[in-house]
C-alpha cells in the first residue's frame, strides 16, 4: 500500500468553461497556476445529506440518503501581489459565473471541476508569520445530469 503527501500538487484556474465536461474538454483549456499555496483543504467529491425519520410508534431512527453536493474547498495561500493566479482569483470573486479548476497531484492524478470563487479573508498576522489569505471555492454541478468533476488517474 502506498500513500502520498501533497508535495508537488498544483492548483490552476480558468474563467473559461470547457467545450465538453471530459478530460479532453478540460485539457484543452490553459489554466493559470495559483502560486504560494500552503494548504489545499478538501478536494471536491460527492457528499450526500443524511435524512432521518423518527415515527413515534418506533424507537429506532430510519436513515436515508438525500440530495448531494460536491463540496467546497478552502485553500490557504501566502499573499503574493505579483502572482497572476492570485490576482485572477480576485477578479473571479466578483463574477457570478463558475470557473474551471484543475488540481494536479503527482501520484494521485488530476481532478478537474467547476467552482464558484467565493473569495476569502486576508490575514497579515504578526511579525513572525507570512501574510496569508484563505480562499473558498464552492464546487457546483454543471446540470442535473453532470457533476462536472473529471478524475484523471495517474499514468
Amino acid at each position: 500500500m502506498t500513500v502520498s503527501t501533497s508535495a508537488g500538487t498544483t492548483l490552476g484556474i480558468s474563467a473559461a468553461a470547457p467545450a465538453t465536461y471530459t478530460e479532453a474538454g478540460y485539457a484543452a483549456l490553459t489554466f493559470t497556476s495559483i502560486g504560494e499555496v500552503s494548504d489545499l483543504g478538501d478536494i471536491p467529491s460527492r457528499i450526500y445529506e443524511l435524512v432521518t425519520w423518527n415515527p413515534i410508534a418506533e424507537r429506532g431512527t430510519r436513515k436515508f440518503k438525500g440530495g448531494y453536493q460536491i463540496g467546497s474547498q478552502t485553500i490557504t495561500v501566502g499573499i503574493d501581489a505579483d502572482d497572476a493566479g492570485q490576482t485572477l482569483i480576485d477578479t473571479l470573486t466578483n463574477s457570478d459565473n463558475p470557473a474551471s479548476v484543475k488540481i494536479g497531484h503527482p501520484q494521485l492524478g488530476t481532478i478537474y471541476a467547476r467552482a464558484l470563487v467565493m473569495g476569502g479573508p486576508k490575514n497579515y498576522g504578526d511579525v513572525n508569520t507570512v501574510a496569508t489569505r484563505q480562499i473558498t471555492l464552492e464546487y457546483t454541478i454543471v446540470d442535473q445530469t453532470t457533476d462536472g468533476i473529471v478524475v484523471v488517474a495517474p499514468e
Partner: protein
Amino acid sequence: MMIDTIAKRRMTLNGKTYQKGDKVQMPAQQFNDLEPTGMVERAPAEKPEAKPAKAG
C-alpha cells in the same frame, strides 16, 4: 492560438516571472482570463519590415 501580450506590471505566471513591459506569449483563452486583472495587455501588431529601396 497563441497571441503576444505585454506585462503591464511585474507578474509571476505559471512559475515564471516577467517584468513590466516584457513580452508574454499565451493562448488567447488565457489572455481573455487575465486581461480583466489588468496584468497584461495585447501587444501592438508588429509593423511589416520596410522593403529595401530599389537601387538606381
